[in-house]
């Protein structure tokens, strides 16, 4: 009896939490396609808010997608070899590199952004380009790529595999491309999805790093929340959710795939 009531109590907490998380999302989705939210659904459904956002803020969405792709490319090129090197050498200094790598995540984005502005803000060519934002995004997402790949590489017996290849005459580059890369596929995929998701949603740093000509999606969202009517802000949120939904589903799928591997 007592354990049964405990079950129901826990279920109630779980359902309430789920409602807390999902109800505002549903409200926002509804508001984004409602003619007048104060009057409710009775005022009719419309796509004109979504259209308005797509027209006026379409560039922020495109810029965010472009930044995410650029950020992914950089973290792949820099992060995957780094993870491999960290997995291979396994010496004490690698701990320090990992520690350094995690610092931009541990320190608030606001501080990192201020630091970047204080050091490079006067280089006007850099300050006004999207490259400035890209630097911030790479700092913030790189550790997620490295950790994801490193986790997979340390789980397999990389050393034995490489010794085998080396004894057959494969050089270091060959061993990296033909042993490490194929084995790390799962980690690279999971890391990539994570990097893209984080880059698309990054706000703390981007808000300080952006200029009126380099607004990203979350920056545009903040603008809309501050100054536009609720329906438009909701329609904008709706577009954002549509953009990250496939990324999230991909992340969950990748996590399951990694788990189910022996």
């Amino acid at each position, binding site marked *: 009896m007592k354990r049964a009531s405990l*079950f129901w109590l826990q279920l109630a907490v779980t359902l309430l939490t789920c409602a807390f998380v999902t109800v505002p999302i549903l409200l926002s989705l509804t508001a984004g396609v409602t003619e007048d939210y104060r009057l409710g659904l009775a005022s009719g459904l419309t796509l004109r808010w979504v259209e308005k956002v797509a027209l006026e803020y379409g560039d922020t969405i495109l810029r965010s997608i472009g930044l995410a792709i650029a950020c992914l490319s950089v973290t792949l090129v820099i992060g995957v070899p780094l993870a491999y090197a960290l997995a291979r050498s396994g010496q004490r200094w690698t701990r320090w590199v990992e520690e350094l790598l995690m610092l931009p995540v541990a*320190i608030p984005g606001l501080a990192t952004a201020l630091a970047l502005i204080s050091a490079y803000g006067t280089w006007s060519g850099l300050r006004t380009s999207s490259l400035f934002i890209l630097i911030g995004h790479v700092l913030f997402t790189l550790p997620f790529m490295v950790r994801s790949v490193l986790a997979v590489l340390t789980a397999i017996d990389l050393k034995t595999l490489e010794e085998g290849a080396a*004894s057959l005459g494969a050089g270091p580059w060959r061993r990296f491309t033909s042993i490490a890369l194929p084995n790390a596929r799962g980690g690279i995929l999971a890391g990539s999805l994570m990097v893209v998701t984080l880059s698309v949603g990054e706000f703390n740093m981007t808000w300080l790093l952006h200029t009126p000509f380099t607004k990203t999606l979350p920056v545009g969202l903040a603008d809309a*929340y501050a100054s536009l009517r609720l329906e438009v802000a909701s329609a904008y949120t709706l577009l954002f959710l549509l953009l990250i939904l496939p990324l999230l589903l991909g992340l969950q799928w990748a996590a399951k795939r990694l788990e189910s591997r022996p």
Partner: protein
Amino acid sequence: MALPFSLQNRLVLVGFIAPALILLGAFFLLPLGHLLLVGASGPQGIATYGAILTNQAYLWSLGQTLLVSAATTAITLLIAGIVGLFLQRNRFPGRGLLLALLTFPLAFPGVVVGFMVIMLAGRQGLIGQVSLWLTDEKLVFAYSMAGLLMGYVYFSIPRTLLTVIAAAEKLDPKLEEAARSLGASTARVTWDVVIPGLKPALISSGALCFATAMGAFGTAFTLATRINVLPMVIYTEFTLQANMALAAALSLVLGLVTWGVLALARTVAGASVAAGA
């Protein structure tokens, strides 16, 4: 056979590590060092750092930030602990859907979370409508400390939940069975067996909640609260007052506190793992 650490091998490894180190050095360590100097470049010089710690307003702001972060951590751990254990222990139809819904906001930036709080507790929010209908009084708290706290909890639940579930899966069910067979009550088993088992996960995810709440900016920005959490103060000093020195000094203090909490938690969590093994 040990892999020969030939010169070629070493060169490749160095070549693999160098780009990341150059990037971090040029765009993170160097700017941070510069920020440290900027913080000391104001009219008060290096004393700016000391002035922060004696200024009533900044201390009050730091205190509020610490308080709201601590409350976020406690509430999130409680909710995520109950829900996580429940979802890990029980298999029922709809469980997968519940988990998917609960972790859906994982990728929401702080600004969007702020908007979710407005949808619930803002001027046109659901809570306001319901309370108006029930009591003739409109309950609106999105733009207060309570709204901010709600947003931070919303932000932290998905991540913490995933960590709790992953940790609960690794618990040895035999320990609980043994405790039960010795006559321990459910509360006793939870307190003496389950919670100690989850402790490292709770500490590390709690520290992460705390650190993100300390540095979070988007949610407070969207809610446009008049609560002066430290990130908002830094932002105001930087943009409205154009006081770069103070903004720099404050953000370094904030960064140091946040990093310190994370480092401390890792040491404690690491120690409790070692003690448990």
